């Protein structure tokens, strides 16, 4: 079977323009059943607009979204009941408790009585909030609020869950909890996941396949190996310095063998051809500029490097 042939969700040339401003254009992506797919890109790349169109909340200016082959643009209801969406905002009533929120959203999904109570207990267990379910949401920490946000999206047992940056602004512990939870939902319950983030490490950890977006377009896609393979002919040399050395940056820029020089807060990142044997020249340049090298590291390419290679910018610029 070819890739995407069994796609449950697919977009074709998806475009959204707000007056003259094109937020998303020509986005083509697919999700197979049970797959975990990442949408990686910096803030403002068009990820949220894309998933708003995919989830039927925003009508595309052009293109189509299909769910099991049926057009979501023509009939949004073909996807809505099968879809769980975790918005970037805390889409909850903060004056209500977790249980009251779940009961409200459960009821509007048509759940009643014992079935509703049982599903509420189940999702509270999944997000680890059973003990504190009767507290007002406004009294929860940011991480706990995000967990309730996810619980609401899981309540009606959707086939696919779309998560828009679900870990923004929370502590590392809560973040780890959420990532483990998403992993379990995908691996143990077979839930299809579309996960958007600008955190490369989250997407690397959770997703089978990744779409990289920038300026409203998908600029690369594939598995992590396929994407880092773009940089198979290159390597990254990371120089950690005690301070900034503009002279050294200038000298390194003049070296023809070095493909790109990027100055960061703590040092300099160099992208060079693989096995270019440049270390000697780099040390000599540092000595001439009297630069204090704290450490030197030759790294294998990451998705961050891929993004850098493709756009010339860092993911979190």
């Amino acid at each position, binding site marked *: 079977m070819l890739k995407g042939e069994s796609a449950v969700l697919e977009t074709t040339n998806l475009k959204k323009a707000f007056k003259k401003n094109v937020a998303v254009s020509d986005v083509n992506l697919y999700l197979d059943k049970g797959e975990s797919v990442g949408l990686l890109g910096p803030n403002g790349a068009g990820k949220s607009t894309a998933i708003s169109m995919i989830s039927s*909340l925003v009508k595309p200016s052009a293109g189509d979204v299909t769910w099991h082959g049926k057009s979501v643009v023509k009939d949004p209801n073909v996807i809505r009941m099968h879809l769980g969406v975790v918005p*970037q905002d805390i889409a909850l009533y903060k004056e209500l408790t977790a249980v009251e929120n779940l009961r409200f959203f459960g009821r509007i999904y048509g759940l009643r009585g014992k079935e509703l109570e049982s599903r509420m207990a189940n999702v509270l267990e999944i997000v680890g909030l059973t003990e504190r379910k009767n507290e007002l949401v406004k009294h929860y920490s940011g991480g706990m609020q995000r967990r309730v946000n996810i619980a609401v999206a899981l309540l009606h047992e959707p086939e696919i869950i779309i998560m828009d940056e679900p870990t923004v602004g929370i502590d590392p512990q809560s973040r780890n909890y959420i990532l483990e939870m998403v992993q379990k939902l995908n691996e143990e319950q077979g839930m299809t996941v579309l996960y958007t983030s600008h955190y490369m490490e989250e997407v690397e950890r959770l997703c089978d396949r990744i779409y990289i977006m920038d300026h409203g377009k998908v600029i690369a896609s594939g598995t992590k190996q396929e994407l880092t393979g773009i940089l198979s002919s290159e390597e990254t040399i990371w120089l950690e310095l005690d301070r900034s050395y503009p002279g050294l940056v200038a000298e390194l820029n003049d070296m023809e063998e070095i493909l790109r020089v990027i100055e960061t807060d703590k040092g300099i990142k160099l992208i060079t051809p693989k096995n270019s044997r440049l270390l000697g020249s780099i040390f000599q340049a540092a000595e001439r500029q009297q630069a204090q090298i704290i450490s030197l590291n030759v790294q294998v390419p990451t998705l961050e490097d891929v993004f850098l290679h493709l756009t010339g910018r860092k993911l979190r610029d």
Partner: protein
Amino acid sequence: MLTFLKKDVVVLLRDRTELLVLLLMPIILTVILGFALNGMFAGGFTSFDMKVAVVDQNDRSAGMEQFTEEVSQLSMPDAGKNQLMKAAESADPSAMLTNLLEDEELGQVMEVEKMNETKAEQALGEGEVTALLKIPEDFTYLSLKSMLLEQGKGADLEVVEGKDSALMAGIFHDTIDRFVHTFNFEAAVAKTADGKEMPGPASGGTGEGLGGTITVTEQEPITSIEYYSIGMAVMFAMYVASTIASKAYVENYQNVFARILLSGKHPLLYLSGKAISTSVLVFMQLVLLFSMGRFVLHAFADNSWRFWLGMLVISAVFSLCIGALGALLTAITVKAESNVVPGIFSGGIVSVLAMLGGSFFPVSGMPELFTNLGNWTPNGIMLNTTLQWAQGLGPSFITPLIVRLLLLTVLLIGLSLLIFSKRRAA
């Protein structure tokens, strides 16, 4: 629908600041305004120390005689002639004028003394009286002729104002002017009613507008506390509409609205949920405020259960209207994706509507345009309806106002549907 209602009620009940504004503020303002502006109600005027002279030259019996003779010469059936004479007997313009001048409430403002013409002119010249009123000899005859036969311009009441106290003389002039106006009005009403009943001297026809008391019937006048307990309640009911719209903005902004749409629910269900929640919250608010007014401030304490039943019905209709207003504000807020509209409404428009509708002071003395506008504000209609009901006017009097309130409700719902359907589609 019940799910939306329950959620909206709980969310509002847990917002203590909002609750304080919606429930405590009207009570506080009722007390402040009720006591501060007490003088505007229930005969609270102080004496102006004004004295007027009345020169009564009217010869009633000669006037009646002359009128009878004129009627007898009319070419009409005897039954009609009898009816005209009956009407003339019961109307008696001079008795009504005397009644006005001897009115107890008017007596608190001015002292009236009957004098002969020479003495009166002398008193006016020496500043002993502020003004003098001359009732002409043929006052009865000319008045009846004009009123009942539609002949002539009626009798002229001559008011001579003194120079020293133009303000007070002006007040007296206005009082007489008002009498003539009221008298003509009531005569016209009586004529329309086919002469069945003419306003007699004891019918209280001179009451309205005199002495600052709002007296439409023989009921006790409304006290300032009672007036403001209604005025403030209807004003603060409008804040519920803007509060609901503000919360709708937060729901939209934080994607809760999107989450509701994703459940497959029709967007109009959300809008109607807002209308119903607003209505129920307003009804609860009014019941609470009227109860607090009744038991804490003793407003309408002597009224019967029938009165309170009527108040419940009127409040229910008003709540529907404010529910429709809440739906309109929600529709605009969701369409504009901005909290500006509920902000402007609660920050300014409510005050304007409250002023036009008479929540701050009775608008009867304001220019006609303001009064007319106020009569089409939901709070103005509600205030008028409850005031009329409180003064014992029956269902036939308040029904047109309730119909007006329902018309306004339909209009607001229509507008909100139109605007909501034009929001960015999802």
